[in-house]
């Protein structure tokens, strides 16, 4: 159940340039967790920025939860500069998360940049449920979390936008399209920048393939109260402004209306 709790930082490591893995204690009051869910986090001691920051669960065990955070602006900077023993104020678990009721026989996970992180728990749980999981990870130049995915992925494919020895050079969506040209029965789960998700959506559509997207939007409360995080979602021929933090952040791939900004 949703709760707000102060959590102690157990561990914090820079796992790639500007990418930090943050391990927090897991509080029993949060109840069950689902991949694709997120927490609204802020350093307890901070007064600025005012709002907490939505960060996806990357993975967890009985006593800890791990988040992977990219340092972007002030909020993530503060979180990434924190030290073990400091306290984080956490609201969660938030959002619908990925539906794992009836997992597909075969799935493909497409992660871009920091969007790879929320797919880790998904890969682990799908794999545990017997799904054959192919994982495509796209980075600018420096891969991270690869070892973690290696443990559970049936196929692991890595692409970088800048040339890196031994890795596919280019866009991870194109990589996937080429590699799995005929495998349109696999269920696709994707998380990454909007431009990537849009590309995934168009690709899925062109192949009549099914999938889910983990999306982002600027958020204040994370609990459905403020309606700032609305996302245009097309259902039954109509566009509704749904809350990314409640009805999302995971939507069916075909539903999301990407606006060309």
């Amino acid at each position: 159940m949703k709760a707000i709790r102060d959590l102690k930082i157990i561990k914090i490591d820079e796992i790639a340039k500007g990418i930090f893995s943050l391990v927090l204690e897991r509080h029993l009051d949060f109840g069950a967790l689902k991949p694709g869910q997120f927490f609204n986090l802020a350093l307890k001691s901070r007064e600025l920025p005012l709002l907490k920051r939505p960060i996806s669960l990357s993975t967890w065990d009985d006593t800890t939860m791990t988040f992977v955070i990219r340092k972007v602006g002030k909020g993530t900077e503060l979180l990434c500069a924190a030290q073990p023993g400091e306290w984080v104020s956490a609201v969660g678990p938030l959002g619908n998360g990925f539906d794992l009721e009836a997992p597909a026989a075969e799935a493909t996970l497409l992660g871009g940049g920091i969007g790879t992180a929320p797919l880790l728990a998904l890969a682990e749980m799908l794999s545990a449920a017997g799904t054959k999981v192919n994982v495509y990870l796209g980075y600018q130049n420096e891969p991270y979390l690869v070892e973690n995915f290696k443990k559970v992925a049936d196929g692991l494919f890595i692409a970088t936008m800048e040339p890196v020895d031994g890795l596919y050079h280019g866009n991870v969506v194109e990589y996937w399209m080429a590699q799995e040209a005929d495998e349109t029965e696999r269920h696709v789960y994707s998380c990454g920048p909007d431009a990537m998700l849009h590309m995934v959506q168009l690709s899925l559509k062109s192949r009549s393939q099914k999938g889910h997207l983990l999306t982002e939007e600027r958020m204040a409360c994370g609990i459905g109260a403020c309606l700032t995080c609305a996302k245009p979602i097309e259902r039954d021929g109509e566009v509704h402004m749904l809350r990314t933090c409640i009805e999302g952040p995971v939507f069916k791939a075909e539903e999301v209306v990407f606006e060309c900004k």
Partner: protein
Amino acid sequence: MQMNNVDLNGLVLKNPVTVASGTFGFGREFSDFYDLSLLGAISVKGLTLKPREGNPVPRLAETPMGMINSVGLQNPGVEAFIRDEIPFLRTFDTKIIANINGNTLEEYVEMAKILDKEDVDSIEVNISCPNVKSGGMAFGTDPLMASKVTSAVRNVTSKHIIVKLSPNVTDIRTIAKAAEVSGANCLSMINTITGMAFDLKTRRPIIANRIGGLSGPAVKPVGVRMVYETASVVGIPIIGMGGIMNAEDAFEYILAGASAIAVGTGNLVNPMCAPQVLEGLKKYLPAEV
């Protein structure tokens, strides 16, 4: 001011802590966190006659100790509110304030008529929403318009009426007086101050609608000043709001002349904010006078 049985000129609250419209949904969102019966009142998300999808996104920008929103009154409409939300809210021992918003005078009247027959404790006439093109703030920045809306609503309902004032005015006292003489039982202030922020990368306004409403601690000195100015010229009670994050902020509003307070942005930052304000206020206020 006292902790128990705060009489807002006909609307009696069990305590002076309420939550501000638009920052508390219809209460459901917070019932995971605490018992809503703790609250003096809940002002629900701004309602319109017909359902509204609101403004395009992004609807949110952060500023120093503040936030700008441009939700644009996304809501399921007054009928859905009555059908789906009142029954849920009534399971708690707290007052229900219906926040209404019209594009036209007629829409305000229509909504008041509908709600007059429904189980709400007060109607909050929002004449100060900065996030809609027509209506909204236009009514709240002109004493004549404010007066017209208030008396029109007064004429069609015997319910307790709160008029919600806009801070985007030269002299809040004239608008407040206009609302008072036209039949408001109570005032609430402040709504958001119109504000703007740019994205330095795209070089465009962050908010899709360009301009939005500023709320949070940054606006507190303005809210406190307006409550203070208004309290000295009106005889009706005031619900003070704008940047209340803790009991100390709330008490500032009370010292300025507010009879009750509302937590707004504070709910978004910390879902437990309102009950914490309530708990903290006990230090400052007597149980009963």
